[in-house]
């Protein structure tokens, strides 16, 4: 029959609790060492791949930059074009008599037995002084005036009659 002999003197024997912790510590050390090694290898692999990708993209960027530099004239012209268009838009938004003339032109073209003594036009208003040699001309004029709806206000500022020259009226359009 086999007999277990403990040849270690009593004073050198290790208590069973501490021995268990020691074994646990050794096991944990092995496990942690394994994870540590795997992690380090993984990190090295990641750095190698990322460094390669970084070098690759940096080289591609430099190639793209040199290609763009070769088209610098096109880029300049595009920037100029956008700048000019923005400023053209501002210029065209400034006041002009064009739209005002378009509104009053039908009235002027339909004048009969009449002459325009004075016509003052700016982007905001029109002031007209019109002379009529006959009542028919005057009547047609006011009929056309009543049918106009493109002005905010039409004000007759004066009206006169002279047996020799006929009718004279001043009108302000806004």
């Amino acid at each position: 029959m086999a007999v277990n002999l403990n040849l270690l003197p009593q004073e050198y024997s290790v208590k069973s609790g501490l021995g268990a912790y020691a074994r646990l510590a050794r096991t944990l050390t092995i496990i942690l060492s394994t994870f540590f090694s795997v992690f380090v290898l993984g990190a090295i692999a990641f750095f190698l791949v990322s460094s390669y990708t970084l070098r690759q993209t940096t080289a591609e960027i430099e190639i793209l930059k040199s290609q763009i530099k070769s088209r610098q004239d096109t880029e300049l012209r595009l920037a100029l074009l956008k700048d000019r268009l923005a400023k053209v838009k501002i210029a065209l938004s400034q006041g002009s008599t064009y739209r005002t003339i378009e509104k009053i032109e039908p009235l002027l073209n339909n004048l009969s037995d009449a002459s325009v003594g004075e016509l003052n036009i700016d982007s905001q208003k029109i002031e007209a002084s019109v002379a009529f040699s006959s009542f028919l001309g005057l009547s047609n004029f006011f009929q056309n005036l009543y049918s106009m709806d493109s002005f905010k206000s039409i004000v007759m500022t004066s009206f006169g009659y002279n047996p020799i020259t006929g009718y004279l009226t001043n009108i302000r359009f806004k």
Partner: protein
Amino acid sequence: MKSKSKLLLFSFGPLVVIVLLSLFALKYSLSKISDIREQVAANKRTKNILEEKLSLLSEVDADISTSSDISLSALPENSPTAVVISQLKRQAASVGVGLTNIKSGGGIKDKSGLSRVDVSFEALAPREQLLVFLKSIETFAPISLVTKFKLNEIGGISRGTFTVSSYWAPLPQKLPPIDSPINDLTSAEKELLSKISTLTQPIFLEVPASEEIREDAFGI
């Protein structure tokens, strides 16, 4: 006691070392991984921007020269007084209107931020012709707007007094950096470009340089 100390040292010592090493390696490598990932992402973003930019520049290359010339003609970088007067005379001649008393002021800074010159003149013609002429003024380049118009009629002859404002602005001084994105024209910009493309362009004559140099031009 000695064996106990040895046991503690050889069992727990490596564990402590491994734990400390792991913590240090984790902290160091995580920050480095984060840095390198940011750099790679930034590079990819820059690369995408540059690719789009190059593609756009290749696409617009063919027409950009004409378009930019048209836009510069519509709104020049210097005072266009001489060109405007030339265009006014051309336009007036085409509708049978004679211009007199042409005056222009010095350039002024308009409230819009652009620079402006006002050209005033008179014209004698039947009313209908004057109105046709007035409407034609805004069809030529550089962009010119009739800001004031006065008409006087005496004995069937109409005299028109015009004030025409024309604009200019200096060219942009700075280009954005090479790796900044660039956009194509918006639909509104394309529409505006199409509109100013229809403006009547000024005619410039090239005077050939004379090779003959006269030493005494006045024959004295």
